[in-house]
């Protein structure tokens, strides 16, 4: 087996330089690559374009890279809950492109499937359609307009999985799977940080979510805070 293991986060982030485009996994704070984000802050690379469903909160997740002004542009579907983000966006320091969530996920998946563009009805007739090609397609007896959207072309993908093996095979846990799965398939170089790194042969091949062919570098994250954005509970009884 090809060994994808790198010794630490610094080795994993090797080659990421100013002005690159990064896909960053997670939904809200769920399943974000915490160790890699901390590593990017330390590395100090600037002018980044980050493609991620959300932008973290003020003091966690991608919010950390916003605080240090390392992000030039965000491509996301939902960016509430982050005051510093809002401030930078309104002042014009930060460029923001908001796109539909399904379009974002599919632009990742298509990059991993080698399909350069695809039609989707999301955003037809809205400002998302401005400047995009529209095609009228009949499918399953229904004729409607579709926007032609492009697969992402990103320099690096940075994802977080629950378990991975030394060959780069990944398994996610619960809804921390979210964007991590399609993003892991999408980068020119994919970096995966995992909670548990095991030897080959210890994961059931039938249960792998992302085959190791998509993963270039894998490492065990030093620690995970796994912060919860909104704790909602019910009382017993």
């Amino acid at each position, binding site marked *: 087996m090809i060994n994808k293991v790198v010794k630490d986060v610094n080795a994993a982030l090797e080659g990421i330089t100013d002005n690159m485009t990064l896909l960053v996994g997670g939904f809200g*704070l769920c399943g974000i690559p915490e160790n890699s984000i901390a590593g990017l802050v330390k590395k100090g690379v600037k002018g980044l374009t980050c493609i991620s469903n959300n932008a973290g909160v003020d003091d966690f997740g991608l919010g950390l890279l916003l605080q240090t002004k390392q992000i030039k542009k965000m491509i996301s579907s939902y960016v509430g809950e982050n005051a510093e983000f809002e401030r930078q966006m309104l002042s014009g320091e930060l460029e923001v492109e908001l796109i539909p969530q399904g379009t974002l*996920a599919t632009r990742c*998946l298509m990059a991993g499937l080698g399909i350069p563009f695809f039609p989707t009805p999301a955003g037809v007739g809205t400002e998302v359609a401005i400047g995009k090609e529209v095609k009228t397609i009949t499918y399953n007896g229904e004729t409607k307009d579709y926007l032609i959207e492009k697969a992402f072309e990103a320099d690096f993908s940075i994802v977080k999985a629950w378990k991975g093996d030394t060959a780069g095979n990944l398994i996610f846990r619960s809804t921390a799977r979210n964007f991590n799965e399609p993003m892991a398939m999408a980068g020119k170089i994919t970096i995966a940080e995992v909670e548990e790194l095991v030897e080959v042969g210890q994961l059931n091949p039938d249960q792998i979510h992302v085959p190791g062919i998509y993963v270039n570098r894998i490492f065990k994250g030093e620690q995970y805070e796994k912060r919860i954005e909104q704790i909602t509970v019910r009382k017993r009884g």
Partner: protein
Amino acid sequence: MLDKNGIAKRIAKEVKDGMYVNLGIGIPTLVANYIPDGVNVVLQSENGILGMGPFPFEGEQDADLINAGKQTVTLLPGSSIFSSAVSFGMIRAQRVHLTILGAMEVSENGDIANWKIPGKMVKGMGGAMDLVASAKNIIVAMQHVNKAGESKLLPKCELPLTGINCVKKIVTELAVLDVLPQGGFRLLERAPGVSVEQIKNATAGKLVVEGEIPEMIL
């Protein structure tokens, strides 16, 4: 007049046995509390759950298990987990039967605006554009008028659109209305104690009133 829970309760009557349903944030989330026993539905959360359950018991919350509103939730027996790509795939492929979501404005031809107030609020569309572009049945849960007292049921939306010609039904604190295929809001039911006159006054778009309008049964 209905409160938020009343709106949710009325919408719950539209949820039929065997449906896969996506509930948006706000009033739509409350609908889950009023689905009658014996009506088996599966709730979809677009971050990758089918079979979403209630909030966890105190101390049992799991950082890896949240809904699309980023709240901690649980899974019911028979649930499944999948990626965001597959989640929106099943939405686009129209496997999800019913979408219930909130709105800032709805127009008489079924356009909806709910993601942006230029210069004021820019949080993003999240999954709303994908949902409204593909769902066959869309019910909007909202207040009939905004905080300034202006109607949210308009001839034409003024805010940036989320989707076009897509809303089928609207439930507000005053009424249940259908969006007619040829355009216009058809009044179906009045909220308890609300007159047709009150609904007319609160509706800026074309309102179609045919015959006696029954009071809704909750």
